[in-house]
């Protein structure tokens, strides 16, 4: 168990084995992302743009080149 020095023994914590399994699964996901073809990775970039763009837009005005590539020419791209 992962327990802090002054932590009561009653606080439930994940086991080292569970944490290792979670980390293993994360590593598996990263490996799967690396194994995608370049075309699939480009699609992943576009998916990431959809996630990131609204966050940027909340912080500041978008620049002319900041748009989701799939939206170019659909009127949804930032101008």
């Amino acid at each position, binding site marked *: 168990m992962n327990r802090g020095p002054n932590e009561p023994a009653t606080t439930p914590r994940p086991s080292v084995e569970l944490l290792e399994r979670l980390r293993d699964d994360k590593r598996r996901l990263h490996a799967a*992302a690396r194994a*995608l073809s370049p075309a699939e990775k*480009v699609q*992943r970039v576009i998916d*990431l743009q959809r996630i990131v763009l609204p966050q940027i837009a909340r912080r500041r005005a978008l620049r002319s*080149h900041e748009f989701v590539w799939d939206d170019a020419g659909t009127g949804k791209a930032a101008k």
Partner: protein
Amino acid sequence: MAVNFAAALAASERMKREGVLTNYAVGGAMALVFWTEPVATFDLDVFVLLPGETTLLISLDPIYRWAAANGYPAEGEHIVIGGIPVQFIPAHNALADEAIEQAATLDYEGVPVRVIRPEHLIALYLEPSARTAKRLQRVAALREESVIDAALLDSILRRYNLELP
């Protein structure tokens, strides 16, 4: 309009064939697509060597003229090709020259594309002017998750006086 990444890559290859560029290589975040996990980005960086660089100041006018003649609109410092904003970045020093000259020729959906090798990408990210937290994360990803030629990386870092974090 559907995005056409292959068209953006093919345009660089055409510019090289037609003598607008001496050579080119994809760099920046989109180069990671060929070596490791993709990251969010909004443009394609193409590092270029330009012909006839006999003056101290480099002009991108020939690239912009070629783009206009081929129907690719300019948006600020980008040219939009296949729905993708592309920045053509003249090599800024000897390291960038070497990165372009020694780029790997890879395939994207049947289109040959020159891509800066991961060892040179790492070195470019470690240059003082480029060394941001975001780029250092990319350095870590390239070192941990892609096949790096350690001897080549060491040689580049030594020759250009760069240090890993």
